[in-house]
């Protein structure tokens, strides 16, 4: 058998993955991308050739949560993803090579695939004190990022840290941590925030690129609209209870057991733009609200400062018809965060935290009266 010229589908068949399963995967990707089901064959076609995009995955101030998320990929399965869908030429968590052999593999891929490789970045990048808070192979994260981004076709920032600075950039940002878009110029940057990112969104993004040769439409935070075009609250399975004024008041109470709305327990769904409720996690099995915990807003800029304390409800009067005012407050918070980010970078996060606290307190006090 001439395995060399096999496409992904044949290779999968060899391993006992049926054509039906393969098409099921393609349909799932189409759905994630918000494509009509009729697009599934086109997705299949794009995946069948050996046109694996070279991927270089850099990790900086991260916890490796996004790398782990990659390993939980169910559509396609993790093994197929890293062997057949992409050519993962550098990824510290998985690669067999180490030390300067690993660095060499990265440089070889960057040279050979100049202008064509996808650069994925996980973790924030510290810029204080010339970047010494994150060094790899004796050089700083900033330098590694700039070198690799220069020859990339596009940069995908995975997770909230790489997208917006995430937890390391939270007040008081001890290392001057920044997101990729703050540091990279001249190459398209896509943010896939979330803590961690949901791997199905990454696969969908890569497949979009393979099929259309372009990036999907992005929102003003550089997030793909197919994943971040709607608020958690808009698609939440508990929304009926929210509208009916049915809230959990205490952990483990009857309302909590029956799956009522978690808004009063601090749910940040009304101000978070993400497809968790529809895509869900771990092969579509669950997501935070489904397991009884409120959303913490991990895909928003300024997270965690704009979203904590997690168990304090959003500043709003609960009850029927509150949705429009909740929205305006949500937008106000995001607006504050965005403006500060744009103007002041790191300092913004600190001030932003104060600002948000103030907005929250005003509303909270009003409500308590």
């Amino acid at each position, binding site marked *: 058998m001439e395995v*060399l010229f096999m496409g992904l589908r044949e290779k999968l068949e060899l391993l006992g993955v049926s054509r039906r399963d393969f098409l099921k995967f393609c349909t799932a990707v189409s759905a994630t991308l918000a494509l009509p089901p009729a697009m599934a064959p086109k997705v299949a076609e794009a995946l069948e050739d050996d046109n694996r995009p070279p991927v270089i995955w850099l990790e900086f101030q991260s916890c490796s949560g996004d790398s782990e998320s990659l390993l939980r990929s169910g559509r396609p399965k993790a*093994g197929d993803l890293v062997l057949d869908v992409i050519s993962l030429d550098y990824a510290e968590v998985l690669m*067999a090579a180490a030390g300067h052999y690993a660095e060499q593999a990265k440089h070889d891929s960057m040279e050979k695939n100049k202008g064509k490789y996808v650069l994925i970045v996980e973790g924030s990048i510290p810029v204080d004190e010339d970047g010494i808070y994150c060094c790899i192979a004796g*050089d700083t994260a900033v330098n590694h990022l700039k070198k690799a981004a220069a020859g990339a076709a596009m940069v995908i920032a995975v997770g909230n840290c790489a997208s917006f600075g995430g937890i*390391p950039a939270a007040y008081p940002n001890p290392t001057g941590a920044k997101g990729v878009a703050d540091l990279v110029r001249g190459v398209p940057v896509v943010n896939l925030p979330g803590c961690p990112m949901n791997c199905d969104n990454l696969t969908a993004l890569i497949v979009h690129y393979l099929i259309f040769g372009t990036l999907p439409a992005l929102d003003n935070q550089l997030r793909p609209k197919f994943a971040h075009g709607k608020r958690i609250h808009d698609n939440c399975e508990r929304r009926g209870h929210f509208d009916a004024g049915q809230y959990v008041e205490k952990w*483990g109470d009857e309302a909590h057991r029956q*799956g009522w709305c978690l808004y009063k327990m601090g749910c940040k769904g009304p101000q978070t733009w993400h497809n968790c409720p529809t895509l869900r996690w771990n092969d579509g099995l669950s997501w935070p609200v489904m*397991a009884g915990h409120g959303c913490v807003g991990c895909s928003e800029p300024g997270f965690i400062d704009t979203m904590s304390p997690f*168990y304090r409800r959003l500043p709003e009067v609960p009850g029927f018809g509150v949705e429009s005012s909740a929205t305006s407050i949500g937008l106000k918070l995001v607006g504050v965060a965005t403006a500060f980010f744009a103007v002041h970078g790191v300092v913004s996060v600190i001030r932003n935290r104060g600002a948000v606290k103030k907005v929250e307190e005003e509303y909270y006090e009003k409500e308590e009266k």
Partner: protein
Amino acid sequence: MADRIVVDPITRIEGHLRIEAKVENGVITDAWSSSTMFRGIEKILQGRDPRDAWYITQRFCGVCTTVHSIASIRAVENAVGMKVPFNAEMIRNVIMGMQYVQDHVIHFYHLHALDWVDIVSALSADPVKTAALQESISDWKYSSADYFRGIQERLAAFAKTGRLGPFGNAYWGHPAYKLPPEANLMAASHYLQALEVQKEIIKVHAILGSKNPHPQTFLTGGMSIPCDPNSQNAINADKIAMIMECNKIAKEFVEKVYVPDIIAVAPFYLDWAAIGKTSGNYMSYGEFPDGREGYPNNLWLPAGIIKNGDLSTVHPVDHTKITEDVVHSWYKDTGPRHPWEGATDQKYTGPKPPYEFLDVEQKYSFVKSPRYEGAPMEVGPLSRMLVAYASGHKEVQDAVNYVLTTLGVGPEVLFSTLGRTAARAVETLVVAGKMETWLMALAANINTGDYAIQDNSKWDPTTWPVQAQGYGWHEAPRGALGHWIVIQNKEIKNYQAVVPSTWNAAPRDDKGVRSPYEEALIGTPIADPERPLEILRTIHSYDPCLACAVHVYDEKNELKSKVQIL
């Protein structure tokens, strides 16, 4: 002739680790372990709601993605006196147990195996012989020659493209690889199967905790996943059945693949039973509350300390005897301090990047040096298994004895690189066998009509004392993990984590004494200094996880002034 070799990055770990080693006449005579990344999460925690801490500290590490949540909630529970309901304890046990199994499987197959398995050599294997080998070690379902031929062809196709992806540029063909091609092919197929298995079994975390990595279901005082057999939004019979299914897959893989693989591979690498020794101090905090008294009573895996490799006595663990020292770490000097009193400030004094070597005579890492009564401690599966073995733990003794007898060796081989890797497999076997007990205890308790999952009496911070301090311990898959918290006016005043990799990966202490990674490398033969495969073997045997090992604590005032300069 002496060479100084550097491995940076050490790949297939979490975080950023650099090893420098002095090699004389083909043997390592000195070694330095350095972490070169720092985030300052403990500074970020100050002033925040202690009930939020678990979520933030969970992000210390995305590989062992539950462990800091557990330590953090226990620290707050200890500080303010929350009493966790039985249901929540059992849910936590199931979550922690599956973390052990999944984490160890990923570690062995995806982070460690390639140190022992030469993927390229698998291409020349005879699939018929591989099938015979597979059948001789267990009755695992994927054992036909056709199956192995398929895997081999897939690898061959991969190799021919010249685009090896994650397998590119490794030390293939290195003389320290000893397995025959057939065993390499078998292991390569298990690498792929394990990728699938880890993803399936960790669904337990999604069922009980919404997602993985980073489950979102913990609460200080309990859990946020409700129990109610008559609700579709709570733990009910359906969810319990799904978890049992995951447990079954986990148990089968561990019994038929993981443990048999260790037993099959170990004889080829028995020389590694004499390499990788440390000072012989092993510590375990104990884990898995097994009765109704609640944590930390009645722990299934015992707490204890073994000194100088003496298995005849197990010493108790006392948290007040723990200190951290920063003489060789990039922080302002303070002298050794207990975590509640720790006061340090990051201060990088290393070489200006790009650099070739660190100045190892001075400070050379962002990791601090924790000590117990002034002595270094090794933590991790080996420590846990040794403490349990020496304490007379029945299941552990049986499993350890089984492996040792099958290999025809004595317990002394455990104090080594091979021992660390074998202990992890033994532990996975024991834990996978236990999970159902906790799940059934949970089901039985729900059946009595007890649906409590949270201590709501202390949820509201206004019920807390103005000043409180506590500590939370957890035996994480990588070893003894402790979080220390000081709460003032309902806010976090101080927070300090002393994590497994801090114990193991630390630099030298104030007396110049080496920590476990550094000590374990001494005496290791290096066949080819250009390709130091042997360093990877010993370092990976610890399952390094570095991001969480690096943390800092500071006074709030200093921070504000520093930030303003920005």
